[in-house]
């Protein structure tokens, strides 16, 4: 039957199609407004989450009377800050930035750099008895009493200890006009610095975190002074020519507790995006980028449950400044003409110091990869070790069966450091001060004083042991053009993930029998198709009987 008119339902469908098409046109126009149409959704989400402009404040600190008075000491400055910010110090004194105290480990020992935790750089702060370490404690001078708020909030660099010492010295000379003039100059500088406060900037956090381990880029391969004014090629988030994020953009803070610490307990207990919870911490990549950040259908989205974003997006760390990759304390103590000496390497970094030993500095370092569930297990000065092999002073927790674990990039720092031959424990030498190794070059004295400060026994017999210490790599996120390519992992030889065993990874792993069977199947199929085609040609048809 030949239809004479369009059926009614079809007419409706036609109009519905037009309406849908019109709607889609509008949606696509809206998407075009919010960003390029070919952008990955995770990138668009992050741009939405961070699109607000410059942060703003409701006070001008130069106009506060409390900050205009003459100051004679650091604690007087703190008192002035607290006259308005009444709860700030109470809050801050609860945080690890002040206490240097982390959690108790499973044995009940106190973790934290001010306690029994160790590393393979300067090893220990000896329960804060090593005063050299206090240069990074946010108090005034070497006292752990009153908070120096300006370490984190001050925007005008000033050497506080020196300024107050000189000010007070000049003020004692009341009869000398020159001294009075210099005192007035210093006081003006102090007041200007006190009044110039703001949310912490990169140089505030960096004044300690870029210099961890006693120098620029010593500890962290992904944190050094190149991040004070980075470009986008170094870090897509912090680049001054890009998003220009300050540290606190991601390290969000509640009552002075700053999110993102990851050395022992997890930096986060769950991964949530801002869509799931608009008040969630922004510390994970997923917070802003979601768990499926790439374009729909992209194979990369299939990786995010097992591979951390950082593994692909941080191909190398220490891309501008070198970082220290090893430190051998056993080589310390050599002298030339009876005096300590130091040498520099091709990168211009000190690679030997009599007071510290042998170091190795490297630039553009490819990370090492481990399964990581967000926790790191660390040894303390109380833990027994097996000195016959390399001691993992800290190592990431998690394996491929752990649902919360993903493959994560790390800087692995290798050390050689002293241990007690009798007690089989790692030792924490006192380094600075009159009894410290840096002045005496006397291991016995330094180890005795260091153990004494920690309240731990020392047998008097020591040797050196190889150790490793891990740092998760999460800064210096490269532009997408430089991400780790598929074939840097999925290759049989030289894979970045060569050390991760116990699971099958396409192209990296193979089994002879399966490979042979696969090839036979493929070749057999090709031969079959070829023969079939040939048969068609020979029979001159498609196999169907021709109609008569």
């Amino acid at each position, binding site marked *: 039957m030949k239809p004479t008119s369009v059926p009614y339902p079809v007419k409706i469908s036609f109009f519905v199609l037009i309406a849908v098409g019109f709607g889609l046109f509008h949606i696509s126009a809206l998407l075009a407004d919010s960003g390029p149409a070919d952008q990955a959704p995770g990138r668009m989400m992050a741009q939405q989450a961070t699109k607000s402009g410059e942060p703003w404040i409701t006070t001008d600190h130069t106009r506060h009377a409390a900050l205009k008075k003459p100051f004679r000491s650091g604690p007087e400055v703190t008192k002035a800050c607290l006259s308005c910010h009444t709860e700030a110090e109470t809050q801050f004194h609860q945080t690890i930035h002040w206490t240097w105290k982390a959690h108790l480990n499973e044995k009940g020992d106190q973790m934290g750099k001010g306690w029994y935790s160790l590393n393979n750089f300067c090893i220990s702060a000896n329960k804060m008895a090593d005063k050299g370490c206090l240069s990074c404690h946010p108090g005034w001078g070497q006292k752990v009493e009153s908070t120096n708020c300006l370490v984190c909030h001050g925007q005008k660099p000033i050497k506080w200890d020196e300024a107050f010492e*000189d000010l007070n*010295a*000049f003020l004692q000379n009341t009869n000398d006009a*020159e*001294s009075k003039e*210099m005192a007035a*100059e*210093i006081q003006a500088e102090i007041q200007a610095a006190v009044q110039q406060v703001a949310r912490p900037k990169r140089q505030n956090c960096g004044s300690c975190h870029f210099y961890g381990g006693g120098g620029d880029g010593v500890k962290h391969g992904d944190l050094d002074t190149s991040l004070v004014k980075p470009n986008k090629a170094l870090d897509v988030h912090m680049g001054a020519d890009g998003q220009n994020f300050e540290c606190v953009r991601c390290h969000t803070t509640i009552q002075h507790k700053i999110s993102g610490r990851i050395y022992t307990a997890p930096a986060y207990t769950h991964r949530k995006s801002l869509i799931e919870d608009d008040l969630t911490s922004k510390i994970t990549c997923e917070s802003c980028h979601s768990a499926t950040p790439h374009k729909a259908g992209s194979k990369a989205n299939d990786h995010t449950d097992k591979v951390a974003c950082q593994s692909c997006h941080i191909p190398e760390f220490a891309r501008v400044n070198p970082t220290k990759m090893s430190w051998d304390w056993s080589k310390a103590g050599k002298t030339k003409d009876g005096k300590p000496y130091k040498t520099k390497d091709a990168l211009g970094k000190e690679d030997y110091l009599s007071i510290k030993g042998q170091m190795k500095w490297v630039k553009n370092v490819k990370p090492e990869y481990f399964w990581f569930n967000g926790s790191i297990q660390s040894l303390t000065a109380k833990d027994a070790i097996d000195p016959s092999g390399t001691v993992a002073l800290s190592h990431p927790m998690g394996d491929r069966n752990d649902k919360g674990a993903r493959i994560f990039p790390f800087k692995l720092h290798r050390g050689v450091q002293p241990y007690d031959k009798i007690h089989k424990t790692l030792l924490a030498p006192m380094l600075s001060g009159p009894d410290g190794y840096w002045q005496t070059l006397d291991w016995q004295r330094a180890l005795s004083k260091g153990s004494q400060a920690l309240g731990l026994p020392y047998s008097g017999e020591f040797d050196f042991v190889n150790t490793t210490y891990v740092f998760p790599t999460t800064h210096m996120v490269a532009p997408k053009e430089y991400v780790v390519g598929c074939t840097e992992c999925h290759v049989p030889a030289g894979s970045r993930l060569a050390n991760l065993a116990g699971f099958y990874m396409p192209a990296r792993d193979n089994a002879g029998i399966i490979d042979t069977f696969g090839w036979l199947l493929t070749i057999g199929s090709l031969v079959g198709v070829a023969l079939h085609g040939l048969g068609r040609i020979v029979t001159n048809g498609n196999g169907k009987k021709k109609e008569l």
Partner: protein
Amino acid sequence: MKSGIKSVLLTVLLVFCFSAAATAMEKGNDRKGKYAYRKIYKSCQARGAVGSSVPSISPADKTQAQWNQVFDNKKFDEFGCKEEWSKLSDKEVIDIYTYLHSFAADSPTPAKCQ
């Protein structure tokens, strides 16, 4: 014979003069010297002659013997900011010398300007 005596006397006189100069320098005020030194570069930056108010040369950049040599010969060209250096009083120069010498590379407490 007379010329020999003259030479000896001249040498003694010269040694005395240099010793006196060195003694005068040692009596400077290192704290004042530090601020006088910094003030040079603040002023120099203010008139646009240098980019930074931080002195480019730190006390720890030279040994005490090298600082002695610089100030004995009064060769201040390497410091830059000639205008400011030329305006310094003798006392200020001695204070600056005392500061740089006290915190030289081979002093007990070497100092950097940063």
